[in-house]
């Protein structure tokens, strides 16, 4: 393997370790946890609480807990929920499918809509279609999911009765959440697409292609698009991170099962092992996707490899 690839993967691994460590210690600084609030409310004695804490290893010194946690993490063991003592990995695995389906379909919508809006804006600016596409993409970026989602429910569920508003399960339940979340994300993709296509249109090799007498359409599809879409790869990676956060709100709004709901409930209940498990999972996914995007970028554009694979965050 190219040393640059190894370096990038090691960097991703280091980021995951650092995020997990940060989450571990930060969450243990907080006074109070699910055990105390739940058991004492339920009428359990102090001794019961102490016994439960001891059983979960919460009395051990912090460093011992940390080493145990890391050792478990390597084996895929994320600890147990403080509330129902279920393994966190099981809780996450149960919810993962629903969230992955939402995230992947939302990203597909975002890519299709975003690339279309961005291209129309770049090609037709400053004529009317270009300006309209610009306004739509900025509106997509500005409309929070929790509002566009409410409007979509009003129109398609309450008004027209076409789609179910809440719940999860079949494809019909996926359409509205994926469309709403995808539309919001399409805004950033459209803006990066437009900026990059415009920049590319002004470069020498595009001018050369035009000077050769190629038709405008062919110059666009064969020259401008091929180079101009490169930065979009990086944005899609960044948006994966956003999607992980965005699913929390989307799942709450549409009362869908998923990791987002799991996280929200765990935060409200102060069930820290679950919060930590979700954080570890998202840091891992996000780092891997960014690393993959960097590698892909390097594959598509050899200049990146020379410069060490660094690219700007948004």
């Amino acid at each position, binding site marked *: 393997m190219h040393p640059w690839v190894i370096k990038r993967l090691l960097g991703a691994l280091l980021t*995951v370790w650092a995020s997990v460590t940060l989450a571990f210690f930060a969450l243990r600084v907080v006074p109070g946890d699910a055990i105390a609030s739940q058991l004492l409310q339920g009428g359990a004695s102090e001794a019961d609480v102490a016994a439960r804490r001891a059983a979960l290893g919460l009395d051990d010194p912090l460093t011992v807990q940390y080493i145990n946690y890391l050792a478990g993490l390597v084996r895929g063991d994320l600890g147990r929920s403080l509330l129902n003592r279920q393994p966190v990995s099981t809780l996450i695995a149960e919810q993962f499918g629903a969230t992955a389906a939402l995230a992947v379909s939302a990203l597909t919508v975002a890519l299709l809509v975003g690339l279309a809006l961005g291209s129309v804006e770049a090609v037709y600016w400053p004529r009317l279609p270009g300006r309209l596409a610009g306004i739509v993409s900025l509106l997509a970026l500005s409309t929070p999911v*929790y509002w566009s989602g409410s409007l979509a429910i009003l129109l398609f569920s309450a008004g027209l009765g076409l789609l179910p508003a809440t719940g999860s399960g079949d494809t019909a339940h996926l359409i509205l959440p994926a469309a709403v979340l995808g539309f919001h994300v399409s805004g950033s993709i459209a803006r990066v697409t437009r900026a990059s296509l415009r920049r590319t249109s002004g470069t020498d090799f595009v001018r050369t292609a035009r000077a050769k007498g190629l038709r405008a359409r062919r110059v666009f599809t064969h020259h401008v698009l091929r180079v101009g879409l490169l930065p979009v790869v990086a944005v899609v990676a960044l948006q994966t991170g956003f999607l992980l956060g965005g699913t929390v709100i989307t799942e709450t709004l549409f009362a869908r099962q998923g990791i987002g709901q799991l996280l929200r409930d765990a935060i409200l209940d102060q069930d820290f092992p679950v919060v930590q498990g979700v*954080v570890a999972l998202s840091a891992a996914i996000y780092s891997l996707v960014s690393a993959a995007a960097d590698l892909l970028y390097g594959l598509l554009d050899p200049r990146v490899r020379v410069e060490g694979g660094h690219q700007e965050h948004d």
Partner: protein
Amino acid sequence: MTDRAVPLGILAAIALITLLAPALAPHDPRSADSPALLPPSEGHPFGTDTLGRDVFSRALCGGRQTLGIALLGTGIAVLPGLVAGMLAGFFGGWADRLLMTVMDVLLAFPNLLLALTLIALTGSGPAQVALAVGLAGLPAYARVARAAVIAARSQPYIEAARAIGARPLRVLLRHTLPNAREPLLSFAAVSFSWAVINGAGLVFLGFGGDPSTPDWGAMLNEGRAAFRTAPWIALLPGALITLTVYAVHRLADAWGEGKTAR
């Protein structure tokens, strides 16, 4: 100039309404003295909510908390982010590397997820939401500030200032910073738009503390609960959030002119 006039006008109008809200609101935004879930009428142009409070009055007054959280959050992101990014970008060396490593680790958490994790630490409430949203936006701002300072630092007139013997701090504050003004302002606007969306989002999720306080995010949550019977509750607060964020983005565009990625 005209690029900025429209968004600035929108923002000024929203700020004015928010500041004058107590005088403008026809009803007390907290009192539940009307029947619940009244549809829009002359006395209640946007109806009443699940507890019988006037939606129009709550929307007018809701900007105080929503925009207050966002402003405070932006301050928490921008001021330390600016100082950290500036020092890192200007002086470089091991401090730069250390700081940027920390920021990169924080950037590995998606913005809203980082804010949620911080809420898990601090608990619910408007101040906590502002802190969470602000800290979540800090690493991105530090990175942008660093990049802006590095870009400005390499200008010939900075070298000239150094050559005539200006002290580093003077070069940074009097020569580098003014030249980096536009990207810094532009990304501060972007940070504010994130703070509005994420702050209202956290309140929407139920982390805003006292639910009787008027807040656009809290109203959207009430609207979600009653969308079948009372779809009018969510309309106005959502439109106000969107309008605010839209205007802020337009302003960021005018300042940044495509220098930032979004």
